[in-house]
């Protein structure tokens, strides 16, 4: 707990890391954040002089895939982020303390770093029945979240759960699970959607906040612009096949073997804001489309409720039977077409029977 006034530099020097390695790390981090050549020295300066940012990491209704992703970060290495860069004071999944000891740390950190700590929330709180669907330390999680958010500097909403609601908020949402921004209204919230978010996006964001001591620029939806300003589609390496009109028709056809665009297989790349096609996964090894499967849109709002993962068009459930926009439109056009035809027929009959005096037939 004593690390609040320590800088990152003093911590890593104590761990036997050389100044040379430290500067290498700064350069690599600057490069992975897409910053200019001067940023490496800015990062080094910040990490040498600024106290480490205390982070408190809470877990609500979630599957821990965000944590799993985070600990696989390669640039910067998670070891560097976790042990040196930030002061991760509380994370009940990976901390050594348990039970009352752990709860005591939480209270202590809340009091000690009042208004200075970053609250990282993985998962979301259920709101129905007073929040009893997620009990954490004997209390509903929503109470813990509210009390910890009160004294925080900012909140990071890890993953699609905290950002949008994800699977536990999918229809019919029996527990009333709600994203963080519907519960906490008075603090800046950074949404880092994805199920899970990319490891480097997570550690990159933490590095940015630690380094510059401020929050990154956010887009309209509250996501950091540096990672979420473009769609998967915009940087997809199969984009040329999309523009050429070369699409996979079946999973095992010739076009699939040739690596054509997966648009017709229901790839959600054109509607998904994430960095997968730029950063990729597992240290840049691959990402879903590269592995031959369409994007599921896991970082977008309500992606569980948009029908099949293999259809371009959303299923519209209001009509009782599951239909998409095309089927509904065609049915409506058919009904109207038939009505028009019937109306024309009645008109013709009426005209012939009602006006026998008219000699010329209607044109």
């Amino acid at each position, binding site marked *: 707990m004593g690390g609040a006034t320590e800088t990152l530099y003093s911590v890593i020097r104590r761990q036997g890391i050389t100044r040379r390695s430290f500067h290498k790390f700064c350069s690599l981090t600057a490069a992975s954040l897409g910053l200019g050549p001067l940023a490496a020295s800015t990062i080094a300066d910040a990490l040498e002089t600024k106290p480490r940012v205390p982070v408190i990491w809470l877990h609500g209704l979630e599957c821990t895939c965000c944590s799993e992703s985070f600990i696989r970060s390669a640039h910067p290495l998670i070891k560097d982020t976790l042990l040196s860069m930030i002061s991760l004071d509380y994370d009940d999944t990976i901390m050594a303390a348990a039970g009352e000891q752990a709860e005591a740390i939480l209270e202590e950190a809340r009091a000690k770093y009042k208004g200075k700590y970053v609250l990282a929330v993985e998962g979301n709180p259920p709101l129905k029945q007073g929040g009893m669907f997620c009990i954490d330390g004997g209390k509903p999680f929503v109470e813990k979240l509210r009390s910890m958010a009160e004294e925080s500097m900012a909140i990071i909403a890890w993953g699609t759960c905290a950002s*949008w609601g994800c699977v536990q908020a999918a229809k019919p949402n029996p527990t009333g699970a709600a994203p963080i921004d519907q519960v906490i209204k008075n603090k800046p919230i950074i949404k880092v959607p994805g199920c899970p978010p990319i490891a480097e996006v997570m550690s990159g964001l933490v590095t940015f906040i630690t380094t510059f001591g401020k929050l990154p620029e956010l*887009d*309209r*939806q509250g996501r950091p*612009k540096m990672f979420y*300003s*473009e*769609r998967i589609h*915009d940087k997809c390496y199969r984009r*040329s*096949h*999309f*523009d*050429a*009109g*070369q*699409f*996979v*028709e079946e999973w095992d056809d010739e*076009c699939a073997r040739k690596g*054509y665009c997966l*648009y*017709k297989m229901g790839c*959600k790349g*054109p*509607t998904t804001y994430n960095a997968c096609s730029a950063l990729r996964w597992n240290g840049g090894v691959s990402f879903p489309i590269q592995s031959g499967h369409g994007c599921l*849109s896991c970082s*977008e*709002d*309500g*992606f569980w409720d*948009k029908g099949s993962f293999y259809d*371009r*068009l*959303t299923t*519209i459930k209001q009509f009782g039977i599951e239909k*998409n*926009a*095309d089927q*509904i*439109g*065609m049915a*409506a*056009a058919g009904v*109207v*077409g038939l009505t*028009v035809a019937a*109306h*024309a027929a*009645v*008109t013709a009959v*009426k*005209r012939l029977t*009602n006006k026998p005096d008219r000699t010329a037939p*209607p*044109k």
Partner: protein
Amino acid sequence: MFVRDMRNEARQLPAAVDAAPTERGIGHRGAYVYDAPVRLWHWVNAAAILMLALTGYLIGTGTPAMSGQASGNFLFGYIRFAHFSAGYVLSVGFVLRIYSALIGNRHATQIFCVPLWRGCFWREVHYEIRRYGFLAIEPDRRVGHNPLAQLAMFLMFTQTITFMIVTGFALYGQGAGSDSWQDRLFGWVFSIWPNSQDVHTWHHLGLWVILVFVLVHIYAVIREDIMSRRSISSMISGEREFRD
């Protein structure tokens, strides 16, 4: 200058003509109803909608796979280019159409301004519904739209096209990037539907609303030409003739 000329013409002609249809040919009663900008817009708009509907449907469903290298093909790119170009034509046309409604004759404002607050308007709508339900047989002798047509035009065309322009530019802004004017002007759409897949779905449904409108529109125009003997050609010549 063109619009200005038309305005003068519009002022001189229909104001007098609407009140009492004049003799404009032997045995024909007619009236000048649609001024030139409205007519020109109608056909440009119709062509743009046809292009948008066809390309839009192809964009939604995808094309059959082209053979050869990706570098040798640009089919989907051309289809999307055609869609965006037609979208621009439609949007610019719609803005100019609003302008012409402000300065043109009263028929030019009909599809934008519907007197929903007037009791007599609704009584006439009721009468028109009876007429289309074969309960009244008096032919329509109006120079412009009848109230029911005006209502349908406003609800199905004006509103839908506005919606399509707004959602269309919002979706275009996704490709153009978050610093584009399209995103700045229309990006608020994604505050209503954060997942743009929903915007795609609504944009897609809009196509079918327009298609249904086109069906009813063409049918009603042809039927009126026959039943009320009001000339269908008035969207070309500008003059509404009553052939009886």
